[in-house]
């Protein structure tokens, strides 16, 4: 149990009013993905307050979040729940506790940006399924073919933005003092 | 040197802002100890003389708080205070005192938090302006060269 886990989340921009939660369940009742979550969003907030750090970080809840902000817009205590889900993903990734495949997608997405400055959908899909489920990639073939025939997927190499060095400088600057 | 601790005199009206200040107490809202309040029955009672007297005796800032327009226990005492306020500001400027040292705010009986916030803001504003020490510098202009 790590009682200061609550403080950790409390410090994050957007996490400031997590202490106001009255456990009413509106967030879970509003969440379209809640039926597939190991813990409902409300339970995750209860676990944070209970200091159940590892259990919360190991849960698949935040990786199921589609960022639709319905919970955040209805919360009677005005808690920025979606921002807290992001925070949990970041901490889980940083501590290598994120087990579900969803975390790979975020990682591939970020790598694409840091490398090319933009996200080429082909690279995103290819790299993601390469890491998680190569067989699945083949099942996309029919949709892929029709997209290519409709000119929605070019065959060229992924483009890189002109000033990619600016992206690298930004990443270097922010990463230097290790801020999450 | 240790950061300058301004001395501020506040005039609070009995029905709204003094009750609001008391509420800040009962809700344990913390604010810096630089402000000491004087209770008057209505903000209308605050004679401009009091403001000049406070500065003359060494205050670095003066705060007047009254009821929000429409809430005054005496119908419109606060409107009359608001009427006098620009005149007092102009006179302070003519005396060479930065008008930002003098502030008028409406605080209701249920706004404990707001009172604490107004007090802290006023202290920081005056702290930034530095000590006034008007008695010593009666002729030298304050706005020209803040300490």
């Amino acid at each position, binding site marked *: 149990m790590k009682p200061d886990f609550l403080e950790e989340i409390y410090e994050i921009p957007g996490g400031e009013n997590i202490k106001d939660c009255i456990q009413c369940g509106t967030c879970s009742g509003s969440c379209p993905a809640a039926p597939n979550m190991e813990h*409902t969003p409300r339970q995750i907030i209860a676990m944070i307050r209970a200091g159940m750090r590892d259990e919360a970080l190991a849960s698949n809840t935040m990786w199921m979040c589609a960022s639709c902000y319905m919970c955040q817009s209805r919360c009677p205590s005005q808690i920025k729940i979606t921002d807290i889900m992001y925070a949990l993903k970041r901490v889980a990734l940083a501590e290598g506790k994120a087990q579900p495949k969803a975390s790979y997608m975020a990682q591939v997405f970020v790598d694409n940006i840091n490398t090319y400055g933009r996200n080429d959908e082909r690279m995103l899909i290819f790299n993601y399924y390469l890491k998680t489920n190569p067989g699945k990639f083949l099942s996309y073939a029919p949709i892929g073919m029709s997209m290519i025939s409709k000119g929605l997927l070019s065959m060229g190499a992924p483009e890189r933005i002109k000033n990619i060095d600016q992206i690298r400088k930004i990443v270097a600057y922010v990463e230097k003092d290790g801020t999450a | 040197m240790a950061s300058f601790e301004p001395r501020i005199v506040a005039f609070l009206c009995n029905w709204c802002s003094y009750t609001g200040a008391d509420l800040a107490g009962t809700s344990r809202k913390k604010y810096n100890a630089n402000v000491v309040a004087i209770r008057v029955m209505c903000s*209308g009672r*605050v004679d401009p003389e009091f403001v000049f007297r406070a500065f003359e*005796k060494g205050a670095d800032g003066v705060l007047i708080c009254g009821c929000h327009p429409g*809430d005054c226990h005496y119908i419109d005492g606060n409107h*009359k205070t608001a009427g006098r306020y620009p005149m007092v500001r102009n006179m302070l400027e003519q005396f060479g005192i930065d008008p930002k040292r003098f502030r008028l705010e409406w605080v209701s009986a249920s706004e404990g938090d707001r009172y604490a916030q107004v007090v802290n803001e006023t202290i920081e504003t005056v702290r930034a302006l530095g000590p006034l020490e008007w008695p010593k510098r009666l002729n030298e202009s304050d706005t020209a060269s803040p300490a």
Partner: protein
Amino acid sequence: MSKPRVGVFVCHCGSNIGSIVDVPAVAAFATGLDNVVYAQEHKYMCSDPGQEMIRDAIKEHQLNRVVVASCSPLMHEPTFRKTCDEAGLNGYLFQMANLREQVSWVTEDKAAATEKAKVVVRAAVQRVADHTELHTTTKPCTPATLVIGGGVAGIEAALQLASSDTKVHLVEREPSIGGAMAKFDKTFPTLDCAACILTPKMVQAYTHPNITVHAYSEVVDLSGYVGNFQAKIHHKASYVNNEKCTGCGACLQKCPVKRVPHEWEQNLMNRRAIYTPFAQAVPNKPVIDAQHCTMLLKGKCGICAKVCEAGAIEYDQAPEGTYETIDIGNVIVATGMKTFDPTPMKALGYGRIPDVYTALEFERMCHASGPTEGHVVKKTNGVLTHGGAAPKAVALVHCVGSRDKNYNEHCSRVCCMYSLKYAHLIKEHVPGCEVYDFYIDMRCAGKGYEEFYNRLLREDVRFIRGKVAEVNNWAIYPEEEGRLVVRVEDTLVGTTRRIPVDMVVLATGLEPAEGAKALAQTLHMSCSNDGFYLERHPKLAPVSTATEGIFVAGCCQSPKDIPDSVAQGAAAAAQAIAMIKRGTVEIEPTTAHVLEELCSGCQICIPLCPYDAISRDEERRLAVIEPAKCKGCGTCVGACPSSALQQWGFDDKQIYAEIDGILANA
């Protein structure tokens, strides 16, 4: 005036002051101040031993000034003023230093708090030296009382006052008294019929010789002071002569304008242009709705006058109504509340989905004389009629607009209980109907309330702990076809659930009544953050306000149930009766007065007085102040260019002394 001999008494207030402020140091500091001949400290100054200590010190050390450094003057100034009087020292030769609310409770750093405490004590000591003897003036107290609001709290207050043989004016802005309670079908937890227990009191109030009910009227102005208020009442034009009208109801049947939305019935049915709000209305006198009466609008019709044997219909009444000023000694405000309009909470579907009702709408549906004569039925293509189909399942949704920072942060106290009542009523009206009750915390704190909750558990109501997130009227799964779907997290099980129902009742919370803010400004009362009226002290003075002679009772002060509203009505009445029985009121002596030798007759002060208390003596060309009219605000004193005007107790010299005390050795 003999040389000031000041006694300073510094209070620990248990740990409230003593734990932050070094009280002994402050007492020691006080001994070094000019004019201070005695300084002492005590754990509780306001206790009997504490007051005893002051009285002894006054005698022993011939003190002619007293400073008590403890809590806020708004808290115990009267207490210590009386203590001084008892020791033969005029109560106004006394000043308080507010060390608790404005020093110890708001300062973290102990050293800074102690320093500030010393400054505050020094200011009080320097001020009290310039205090002069003052005496309160006693004024006769008019033995009549104004009660604003004819709901259950106002009726109780009026009846208690009337039974003490004093005159009561009960002003109610609706055509009938009864307030919100009159709209209820049953009451919790006893399931008494609301009308059965309320109507007798309404009739008793209306017929009581000491009570004048001013129905369809509003208070538009209040002037004067405690014991001597003048209230201006606006009687809205009802176009019916109440003396002549016998309440036979003939006009109600014959009026051709039939389709006016009936606000009292939550617009679930229509009323006519001439109407009484409900069958047992008291006074049972109809009023004509000028916005819908064709006679008043176009001068055509006049049927109600034709059928009225008593000849009570008066189309020629002045549309702006009439005004009446009454003299009263006290005012009891019992203006009640309004329920939250859930339309902005789009997720719950009110207004979008026909069978989503507010609490009051459902209350009227259950009521025998309501829109469906007591049948709990669904609307048939959007219209509520008796013949509607009974619901197979009903959802009761708690905390709608309450405990929600997007709308009202406060808990409205009564919704859990009335939702339980609805659960029972549904089981009674529609046998076999499924009832789901969605709550966050079941708050049943009153007498017999928890037992009532247990009763509903036994009546197979399905209680689900979780706030309803949304109500939809389109189906995803087959069993939801044609029904409403409630989506919620069953937090005790930890899963989200979709529950098909046929009707939803929203437990809408309680808010300040329509026009509450305007009335507060008319009566110069403060409101708390949530907009309800501010009591003088939440625990020790819940029914009085900062203004002497003005009391509050019932939901206008904060949401509460009927027992508490009735208790507060009686409590407010008791305090008014005490003042009437005394027959006199003490008027604070802190009024303004003229130093004639300094007055140049410039008349700057005259227009400043909101109470016209200042006039000009033409021969001597001087300002003259009428003490009875002066309420002691000091605005004129603050404006007088030659300091000819002074205020007893807030004299320029005294305030200068206080300023100097604060800034000494600045």
